[in-house]
Each structure stands twice: as C-alpha cells, then as structure tokens.
C-alpha cells in the first residue's frame, strides 16, 4: 500500500513539475486577491479576524482549483481505470491523491501567507503554534474532503459546479477552527483547545471515512 501511495504522489508531483500551471495559477490568484484587498483598505492595516477570513478564502478557492486540476490527470485518457485495476487496496489511490493535494495546497499557503504581512500590514504572528497547526490542519482537511468529494462526483456531469458547492458546506467546521487558530496567532488569544480539538476530530473523521468507504464508492 505504501509503495502505491508513494508512486501516486511521485507521479502527481512529476506531472505538476512538468507543466507548472497548477501552483503558478493558484499562487497568482492568491497574490491578486491580496493586492485587491490592499487597494480596498487603502493602506490601513486589516483587522486580524478579517485577515484570517481573507487568508482562508484564498486557500479555499486555491483548493478548488488545485483539486480539479489534479483530478484531471486521471481523467485524461481514463488513466483512472488503470489505477482501479491495480492489485492494491483502492484506498491507496485516495491516500496517494490526498498526500499530493496536501503538498500542493501547503506550498500555496507558504507562498500566500507572508503576503498578508507584507502587503496588507497584518502584524507577524504573536504565537506561531496556532498558525502552523491551522495551516497544516487546513491543508490536510481541505485536501481530504476535496479528494473524497472529487471521487464521489467523478461521474457527475456538472462536477465543476457540484464540487465547490458541496465542498464549502462540508468544510465549515474545519474552516471555523482554522480561521480561529489563524486569528489567534495574530492576537495571542488563549483557550484555543476547543479549536485544536475540532480540527483534530475533523481530520480523524475525514482521514478514516474514505478508508472505510472508498472501495465501495468506486465499484458502484
């Protein structure tokens, strides 16, 4: 199973490295969003809560772009069927795609987050732990739910609409937790246990559910 997961991750990274459209477009979108927000605020510093919300809005839209793009790797020439015919537990396909999508999303986060300090005048983090945990949990959680939904909607004709429309409501608990953690890192709030717990529980849920259901879903 690990060999299959690693092979899928390497394949997705190689495909993205060759074309470089995916990360470039997601990062560019993020920068443009931050620049427009900076223009709207006219040089005034953005409140921490609004900045945290804006950051996760950028990451959420980048997530939609990235996941739709990486799933197209499998759709071109139906390579997806080649994966399904492999003699491995089919959940390995899910976890391989999940790791690759998490990696891409985390790279976008690393590129876009500093622009909030530089362009929008948001102060540097007073506490790094909630920011790092929030970014990591957000990347894994969004990639997990998104990857799962992409497989669920793979046979749907209106997938480009259906996918983001179903992703956003499903990720509200996660977004709530990571936005609170991100805002707290800029304002040094205490009592964050509940948000760590919500993010952790969400990751456990969407890390395990696909493992249990994936074989069933792809066979129907």
């Amino acid at each position, binding site marked *: 199973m690990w060999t299959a997961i690693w092979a899928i991750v390497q394949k997705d990274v190689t495909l993205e490295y060759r074309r470089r459209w995916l990360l470039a477009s997601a990062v560019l979108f993020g920068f443009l969003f931050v620049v427009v927000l900076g223009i709207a605020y006219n040089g005034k510093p953005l409140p921490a809560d609004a900045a945290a919300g804006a950051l996760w809005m950028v990451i959420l839209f980048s997530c939609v772009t990235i996941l739709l793009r990486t799933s197209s790797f499998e759709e071109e020439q139906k390579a997806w069927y080649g994966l399904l015919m492999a*003699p491995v537990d089919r959940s390995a396909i899910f976890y391989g795609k999940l790791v690759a999508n998490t990696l891409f999303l985390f790279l976008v986060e690393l590129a876009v987050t500093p622009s909030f300090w530089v362009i929008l005048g948001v102060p540097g983090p007073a506490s790094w732990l909630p920011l790092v945990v929030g970014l990591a949990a957000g990347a894994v959680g969004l990639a997990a739910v998104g990857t799962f939904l992409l497989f669920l909607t793979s046979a749907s004709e209106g997938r480009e609409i259906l996918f983001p429309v179903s992703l956003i409501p499903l990720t509200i608990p996660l977004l709530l937790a990571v936005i609170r953690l991100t805002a707290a890192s800029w304002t040094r709030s205490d009592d964050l246990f509940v948000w760590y717990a919500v993010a952790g529980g969400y990751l456990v849920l969407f890390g395990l559910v696909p493992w249990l259901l994936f074989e069933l879903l792809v066979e129907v």
Partner: protein
Amino acid sequence: MIELRRASLIRNGRILLHPVSLCLGPGLVTAVTGPNGAGKTTLLRVMAGLWRPSEGEVLLDGKIPGAADRAQIGLVLQESMLYGGLTVRENLRFFGRLYRVPDLGGRIAALAEEFAFERRLDDPVARLSKGYTQRVALARAFLPAPRLLLLDEPFDGLDPGMHELVTEGLTRRVQNGATAVVVTHDLDFAGRADVRVAVNRGRVNASFSALGAGSANERRPTQGPGHA
C-alpha cells in the same frame, strides 16, 4: 478462467447489459463483435470488475476477484489509460510499481522491443502518434504478464505490420495459457477467434463454455438462462 453468472448491468434505470452467462477457459481467444453502442465495452468493463454487475456475478478462477487478483487482468480500453505528461518509460514504471512487477526495467525493455517503441521510451506520451500510443497501452496491459487479457479495439490505429505483430503476441500469450477477450470490428480477426460472441443492444446473443484449450469440436456451447 473467467465466468459470468447471469451478470447484468442497469444504470439510471436503463438496462445496459441483459443477464449473461459465459465461461471462458484458458488458451482461448474470444472475439466480441457487434455494432457501435451495442454493449461490447460494457461487457468488457463488467468482466474487468470496473463496473459491478447489478445482478449476478463475475468470477475469476471460480471466485469473486479480490485486490490481488486484479494483477491477473490486463485491460486495454479505447482510451490509452496513460498519462500524457509522463514519458513512455515513466508511465510503464508507474504502473509497474503499482502492479509490483519484478525486474521492472528488464520487463519494460522486453515489451518495448516486442512492440517496437524502444526509441520512443523517453518521449512524453502526449507527443506520440495514435499507433505508438496504442502500442504503449498494450505494453502497459501486458506488463504484469496477466492471465486474462481484456482488449477493447486493440488494433485501433496500428499499421498492418504492427497489427500482425500484436496478433502474434496475443496468440503466443494465449498458447501459454492466457485467456483473451477481444472487442473488435475486425471481421478477419473475429473469424479466426476460438470463440465468437455477438452483442446487440446489451444482449449477448451467443455464448460458449470452453473449459480449456481445445479444438472447435471439443467446445461445448451452452444455452444458459438469459441467453437469446
């Protein structure tokens, strides 16, 4: 040996495949023929386990195939099932790793020689012609030395020389004990096949039970339930 027991497929209330019982033993080439949209590819996908039958079952060597058994199936569809952004070698290495093919480098070299694409190994698949892409798709399917070959229009895009070479390769594998099911519009190939199955509007019009290699006289046609 692959066996379909009253396997049918219904999607969105439409019957794509009427109940079919079919038993194909090793050492046989089966040609599946029929007009466009008749259900030939559907039959192949049900056989491959890509689509679970709505009723009935598909058995491989007498049991419902599990994950490990999928290594015994070599599938070629009308699409290449390859990644256009990867080179030929990278595609074969990727699928070889998924299939845990031993001596992968040697196996890739042997298949590249068999299908005459040694000089294109480091070219991206997206830049290959239809014929070369089809050769690589066949090599991908043959990579784990499968015992059941499910091939949908395998000669599509091949020049006459390569057509002959693929037919020879297929025959050699069948003589070594593989079972081949070939969806084709090539009536010449279909005429030479050991078993012929005609599909029309999701109905498999004829089926044969062939429990092992043998002459046409030894084959035992069956009229199982659900056959037209």
